[in-house]
């Protein structure tokens, strides 16, 4: 128990008690005031920090250039903290090998003259992860504080900082997720104890600035992609030279300008001798010679064996002289690594711009002129509209073909593919056919080769793809769901325009297509070709390796190609009945393909014996006259309605092993 002394009524005691009470009350008031002041101060600081973060966040929303956002952040933070200097470290543009911070050259606005030396030294330095203040931020990915630069052994600019009157520092990262996009650093002229709350605040600011860096990166990437795509669309992938589309733009203006097309004579012979790759290098070498002569005018590669350029000439005679001089550049042999090539050039010349008459494109006119020059055994000729329009004169086969695509003189025939295991036709190869209105039937080998040479193989192939998609719909309506194969030239495996066309068409139509490519085309341009093939495969387009065994073969590439099917060249299949050596080769090829997960199609199956042998060897699909010749789509529909190959099914059920002969059961050769 606490005994409470009785209260004295003495006035002196009373005054004493009241004074004590007053003193207590005053203490209480002062304590309450301090508490209220502290609360007010905290609230004020919080509001200021929020305002700081908000102002930088809104700048980060509005500004596209990180440098602008950095400037705002530096000034706002300097203003808020009263720290006199701020600076930003960024990454060098080329970050392929080392990750190093370099000065952005961006400083807070009110830097003093006294700190000029410090700024100069700073701008000459770079920092990797862990090195000095910026490097430590880069490594730790959060804010770092240096209370006294003089006491920090890691701070590399200590001497110059002291000389310029700088004592304390802090820095923080602009973060993109967990990745550092830039580092902001600040300096104060007096030593400062770490301010944890400020460090948290600036880390929030860092996240806001990271958004700007990220947006800039994305937009740069998009711009680069766009520029790359534009460049690809206007350039030949094999040689890097401008392409036909580029020259078309150049030749669109008609003002005393002429387009000259220079074709390598006997192009196919040359290409077969030196290969696709060397062909591309030879065209580049030729183009370099032409550039020197044509005083810097860019040279486009129009087709596999043709170059084109736009020249200035006063009249036709002048243009022809220039063209002949350009042809003469090929007189000296062309040295490629390890080989020397002798070629000759023929030139076709046409005016630029539009011209009345059937051929609107100046490049087409020059291409016709090139044909006309070759037919007339001349070095160079001008486009002769009269001769072109005259049925008896020299005709340009390739431009007739392009007309034929529209007039139904050209069509697609389908050769059925027969699946040995199931005994049904499960596919067909689309093959182009052309009957010239005056010359009659033209060999595909001839016009396909010419199309390759003159750069028309893309429109031709695109036409076939369109036809195949249309015909597949017709087949489906008749109840037949089969894959249609289209031959794709090696040239097109380096043509981004074709790839985009094909992917777009297939995506739009849900077509089931297979692209037949040759292995040689891939070997010649592996990087680009494999990438395009991957895109085809990813889009659900089948990929078939055509003519296997006829050209160069490389197991290494065979493994890299995302193919579904391997087609053994007919030169191995046709002698199968008689040649045991070929039989051995075919069997080992089938085994090899199977080990790579590829289905095998044998081409050129012309006899029942060959068919039976192939089935015995485990071949998957057969194609050839014995199964069916190339036929019109209407005939194919009729054919699909009948038994595929009568008798084969019975062999399949009666004899699982390969029969040596099957002539009895396979006596009925199908028509077509």
């Amino acid at each position: 128990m606490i005994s409470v002394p009785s209260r004295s009524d003495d006035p002196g005691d009373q005054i004493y008690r009241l004074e004590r009470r007053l003193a207590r009350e005053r203490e209480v008031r002062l304590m309450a005031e301090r508490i209220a002041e502290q609360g007010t101060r905290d609230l004020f600081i919080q509001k200021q920090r929020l305002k700081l973060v908000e102002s930088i966040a809104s700048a980060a929303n509005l500004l596209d250039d990180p440098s602008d956002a950095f400037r705002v952040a530096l000034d706002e933070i300097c203003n808020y903290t009263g720290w006199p200097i701020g600076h930003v470290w960024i990454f060098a543009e080329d970050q392929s090998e080392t990750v190093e911070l370099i000065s952005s050259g961006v400083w807070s606005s009110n830097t003093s003259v006294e700190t000029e030396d410090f700024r100069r030294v700073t701008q000459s330095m770079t920092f990797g992860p862990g090195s000095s203040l910026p490097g430590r931020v880069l490594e730790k990915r959060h804010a770092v504080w240096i209370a006294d630069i003089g006491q920090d052994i890691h701070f590399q600019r200590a001497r110059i900082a002291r000389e310029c009157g700088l004592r304390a520092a802090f820095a923080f990262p602009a973060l993109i997720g967990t990745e550092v996009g830039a580092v902001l650093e600040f300096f104060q002229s007096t030593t400062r104890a770490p301010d944890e709350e400020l460090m948290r605040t600036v880390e929030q600011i860092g996240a806001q600035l990271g958004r700007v860096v990220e947006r800039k990166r994305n937009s740069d990437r998009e711009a680069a992609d766009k520029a790359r795509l534009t460049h690809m669309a206007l350039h030949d992938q094999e040689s890097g030279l401008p392409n036909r589309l580029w020259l078309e733009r150049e030749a669109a203006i008609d003002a005393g300008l002429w387009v000259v097309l220079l074709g390598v004579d006997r192009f196919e012979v040359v290409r077969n001798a030196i290969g696709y790759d060397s062909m591309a290098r030879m065209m580049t070498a030729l183009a370099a010679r032409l550039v020197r002569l044509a005083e810097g005018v860019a040279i486009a590669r129009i087709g596999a064996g043709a170059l084109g350029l736009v020249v200035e000439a006063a009249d036709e005679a002048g243009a022809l002289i220039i063209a002949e001089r350009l042809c003469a550049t090929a007189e000296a042999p062309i040295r490629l690594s390890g080989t020397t090539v002798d070629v000759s050039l023929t030139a076709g010349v046409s005016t630029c711009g539009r011209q009345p008459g059937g051929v609107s494109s100046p490049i087409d006119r020059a291409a016709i002129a090139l044909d006309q020059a070759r037919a007339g055994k001349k070095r160079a000729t001008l486009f002769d509209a009269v001769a072109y329009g005259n049925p008896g004169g020299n005709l340009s086969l390739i431009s007739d073909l392009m007309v034929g695509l529209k007039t139904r003189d050209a069509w697609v025939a389908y050769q059925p593919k027969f699946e040995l295991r199931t005994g049904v036709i499960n596919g067909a190869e689309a093959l182009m056919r052309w009957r010239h209105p005056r010359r009659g039937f033209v060999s595909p080998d001839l016009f396909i080769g010419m199309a390759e040479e003159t750069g028309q193989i893309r429109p031709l192939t695109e036409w076939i793809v369109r036809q195949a998609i249309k015909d597949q719909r017709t087949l489906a309506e008749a109840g037949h769901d089969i894959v249609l194969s289209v031959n794709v030239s090696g040239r097109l495996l380096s043509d981004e325009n074709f790839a985009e066309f094909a992917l777009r068409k297939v995506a739009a139509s849900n077509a089931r297509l297979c692209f037949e490519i040759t292995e040689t085309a891939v070997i010649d341009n592996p990087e680009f070709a494999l990438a395009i093939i991957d895109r085809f495969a990813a889009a659900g387009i089948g990929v078939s390796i055509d003519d296997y065994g006829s050209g160069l073969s490389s197991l290494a590439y065979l493994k890299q190609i995302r193919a579904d099917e391997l087609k053994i060249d007919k030169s191995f299949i046709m002698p199968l009945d008689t040649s045991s050596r070929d039989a051995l080769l075919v069997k080992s090829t089938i085994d090899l393909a199977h080990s790579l997960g590829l289905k095998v199609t044998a081409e050129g199956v012309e006899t029942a014996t060959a068919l039976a042998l192939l089935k015995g060897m485990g071949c998957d699909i057969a194609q050839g006259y014995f199964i069916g010749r190339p036929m019109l789509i209407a005939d194919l529909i009729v054919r699909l309605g009948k038994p595929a190959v009568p008798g084969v099914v019975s062999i399949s059920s009666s004899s699982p092993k390969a029969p040596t002969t099957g002539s009895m059961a396979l006596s009925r050769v199908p028509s077509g």
Partner: protein
Amino acid sequence: MKGVVFNLLEGAVSRAFGDDTWEALIDAAGVSGTYTSIGSYPDSEMEALVSAAGQALELDRNQVLRWFGQNAIPLMADIYPDFFSAAPDARTFVEGINSQIHTEVRKLYPGAACPHFNMRSNSSGDLVMDYISTRNMCALAQGFVEGTAVWYGEAVTFEHVTCTSHGAPHCTFAISWSSETLDEVKAA
């Protein structure tokens, strides 16, 4: 004016003359006398208190304000020890008024109308300070500067170069400190 200034005046008066004197001043000035540090009160109440004090002590307004400034500094050092420990000497303290002390004052007392001092050095290295305030309390500023010097144990020479009370657009002070202590100066 912020209540904290009234509290400082109360503290200075009570410490020098006793609590009763403060009570008497309140009565003489006809003001409420209830001030909390974070509240804001009319400038006229401060003027009334200063005037009442002047009558009682037979001093003019500027003399009262200067006395108040000198005697408020030890009280401030009790309430805000960090302000003083952050500056090693009186000149550094005074030079930091705008950037350090008034910045901090605005955090503690939002809405405080602190005066602004333009500062520079003259040819002889003295601190030249312009006082710009609608309250015309240049004498209070002088008292603060002098009180600070005492707190740091330094001698100060405070010259009132121009003054608004003499028609100048603003007041300008020239201030110099000596490392000799006040006692040494007095002794000399």
